[in-house]
């Protein structure tokens, strides 16, 4: 099992550009999450999904969009990149309903710089 895979590992964007951060998991987990982590800070929840076709906002959703067409994939879209979105982005998953005590499995992150 690869676990949670994020691509790309690094990306530099110019202000106003758009991009999609990819996240896929091969553990058949229902719940998936996107977090951002600014330097020296904790993780902030951007969006989460409890299953295919279902997504909801977290603490800091502005400037981002997500979709969940399959159980495996949970891409994060930045439409108009801004310097404030410079951060490290982590995707995570867990089994979900019926396994509420199960821990999160994290990917290795995508380091994004917007200049």
């Amino acid at each position: 099992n690869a676990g949670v895979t994020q691509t790309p590992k690094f990306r530099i964007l110019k202000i106003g550009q758009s991009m999609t951060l990819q996240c896929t998991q091969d553990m058949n987990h229902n719940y998936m999450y996107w977090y951002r982590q600014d330097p020296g800070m904790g993780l902030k929840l951007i969006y989460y999904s409890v299953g295919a076709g279902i997504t909801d906002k977290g603490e800091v959703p502005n400037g981002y969009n997500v979709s969940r067409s399959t159980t495996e994939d949970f891409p994060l879209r930045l439409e108009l990149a801004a310097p404030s979105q410079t951060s490290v982005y982590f995707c995570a998953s867990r089994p979900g309903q019926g396994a509420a005590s199960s821990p999160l499995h994290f990917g290795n992150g995508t380091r994004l710089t917007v200049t």
Partner: protein
Amino acid sequence: LAKTTQPISMDSYEGQEVNITCSHNNIATNDYITWYQQFPSQGPRFIIQGYKTKVTNEVASLFIPADRKSSTLSLPRVSLSDTAVYYCLVGGQSSARQLTFGSGTQLTVLP
């Protein structure tokens, strides 16, 4: 959503036992307490999880008092490689959907 409070930083020496306490006053009945470890440039990694009393695994122990309003992560005989940020996370059946992290505790182990 249960909010957590932890010390911002702690220092220790190699070979000592380290205890990190997390406060979660509004924990819900169905919530579990989970601790994660994060090294620089990596995603958080699961350490231990518990619901009440004491849980022990090969790397740590977790102590949870009867009122469950706090929890203590105990790392026995720390080494330099235990230098990391430690996060306490509270969630469960009632809040399974949103899992929000606190600020974490930066543990620095000194030689």
